[in-house]
């Protein structure tokens, strides 16, 4: 192949790559851009730099309440999903039982179900049961969609765990509980932390289920949506979005870091152990 041809192909590839990245991230970059813009109108050209919108956020009581609600929901969801996910992942990695594949596939299904369908179905179900909507119903809905992610992450942690490690511990006089405490748990801990962080992040941003199932206590995304009706509030929503964006990115990076550390500890190539990033 001639060098000229080669470099030309390379430049087209570069243009494609740059275009692709712009398509992915340009909308997201607008958030911080307008969050620090001094005009109340969301349009170019930018008029000046300000941190006023962040100050506005701090003095907003309703926002504070929705942040609190979201944290309650996200933390509960993360813990519940990880607990349920750990049990399923362990069972699928360790035991062979009839209907195993079907069962795991069934648990993973919410991953591909349209969220709006899940949300409507849950709402109908709750109404039929006569349960009132509250943060608890949101936690339930979020756990449903987070468990598959948790299983996917923890499966790689449990599958990477050599069975003979637990046998060795047992052989050296340790009890089942002691083996779990001293061998199993330390080895899957990075996976558990990774799962907690990812479930937390998913729950924190989730809108559709929260919108359907929340009662009077709005979560953060629901609050943001309600504020979009007021044009003057838009810049502070941009500021809020910026904070959430930064938080999500940090949490996801942390989660991946923990997952790779887990794989490394067990001597498995990190990329081979599966993951989201």
């Amino acid at each position, binding site marked *: 192949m001639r060098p000229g041809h080669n470099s030309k192909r390379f430049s087209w590839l570069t243009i494609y790559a740059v275009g692709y990245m712009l398509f992915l991230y340009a909308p997201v970059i607008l958030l911080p851009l307008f969050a620090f813009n001094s005009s109340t109108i969301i349009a170019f050209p930018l008029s000046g730099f300000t941190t006023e919108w962040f100050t506005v956020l701090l003095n907003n009581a309703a926002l504070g309440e929705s942040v609190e609600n979201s944290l309650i929901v996200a933390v509960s969801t993360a813990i519940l999903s990880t607990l349920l996910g750990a049990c399923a992942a362990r069972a699928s990695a360790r035991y062979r039982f009839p209907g195993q594949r079907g069962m795991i596939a069934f648990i993973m299904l919410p991953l591909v179900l349209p969220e709006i369908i899940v949300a409507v179905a849950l709402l109908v179900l709750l109404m039929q049961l006569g349960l009132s909507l509250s943060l608890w119903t949101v936690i339930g809905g979020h756990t449903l969609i987070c468990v598959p992610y948790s299983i996917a992450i923890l499966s790689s942690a449990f599958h990477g765990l050599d069975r003979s*490690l637990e*046998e060795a511990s*047992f*052989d*050296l*006089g340790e009890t089942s509980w002691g083996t779990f405490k001293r*061998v199993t748990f330390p*080895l899957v801990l990075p996976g558990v932390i990774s799962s907690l962080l990812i479930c937390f992040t998913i729950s924190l941003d989730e809108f559709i289920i929260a919108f359907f199932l929340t009662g009077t206590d709005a979560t953060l995304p629901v609050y943001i949506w309600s504020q979009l009706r007021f044009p003057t509030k838009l810049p502070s929503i941009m500021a809020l979005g910026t904070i959430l964006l930064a938080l999500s990115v940090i949490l996801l990076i942390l989660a991946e870091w923990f997952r790779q550390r887990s794989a490394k500890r067990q*001597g498995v190539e990190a990329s081979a152990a599966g993951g989201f990033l």
Partner: protein
Amino acid sequence: MQDKPIIELRDVIKRFGSVQALNGINATIREGEFFSLLGPSGCGKTTLLRMIAGFEDPTDGAIVIDGKSMQGIPANRRPTNMVFQSYAIFPHLSVAENVAYGLKKKKLSKAEIAAEVDKALSMVDLAGYGRRAAHELSGGQRQRVALARALVMRPKVVLLDEPLSALDKKLREQMQVELRQLQQSIGITFILVTHDQEEALIMSDRIAVMFEGNIAQIDTPEGLYRRPVSKRVASFIGVMNFLDATATGQDGTGLSLDIPALGKVTVPSSHVPEGMAAASVQSIGVRPEMLTILFDGKDRAESETTGKITGTSYYGDMTYYTVALNGVGAPVTVSMRNTAGRSVLPVGSPVRVGWGAESIVLFE
């Protein structure tokens, strides 16, 4: 070595679903001996070891360790410790923490634990490696840590599940000798599972050869090699030439045979297995090194026959010849030491092959 039994296996049966993995194993393992379970993969040797360790329960029969039935006693309360095939070194702990793992349950002071760990590590030639992380170790070192971790528990029996199979040839041969020496110096009973007959011969006091869930023969390495009880055992341990034979009579001196490939011979009574009737002899076996190619006209043997070389394999110290004897049956293998002034004979050479009555093994 004492003759006191440390492990008794009585009619041990193991079934996995409808598959019978072990069909009634009976064996006694003596205190302080190096005992090997040898067999091809799938013969049940690992299952048997795991049942002694307590990871599997026998479907029927009894396992007695040091006079106590192990029925219902889980692995963590048995006086056995295992060296796993994968070594199962805890990856999140240092070498010293790995070795100290089981001692935590023994109510020892920190100083006592440290002393025990140091002692165990120097026993396996790893003194000073205590602070290394598990992933910094080579394969041979991991194997030593696994051994130290088992020995520090002062078990009655150490169980080794193919511990050398992951090592390269050189290191494996070195570890075979070291393991054997270590076992003899500390006098603890070792039970080794292996599919490598050479490894079993080098390391063991006694070997149980297993096929398809049964023990075919339990004997010393020499007994197993010289007096295999069946053609199957004979061909699993080393190389054996099988030749057709017909018994022509039996008296006080021995058993007379007509072997078409070799000639007529009387096998002395001391070499005839007890209870073997002359009529039941179908074939004989003879090891390659028990046959000799008689080089120049001066070499003599007890008996001799003639043949033609059909192939040679040169091993440096030895040459393996395939020789068609008198044109009868399949060619036999003859091994010859390559001594000074003796070059490899070319294919096609007519040769005289020497042999002796005492080297003949009878098979039914």
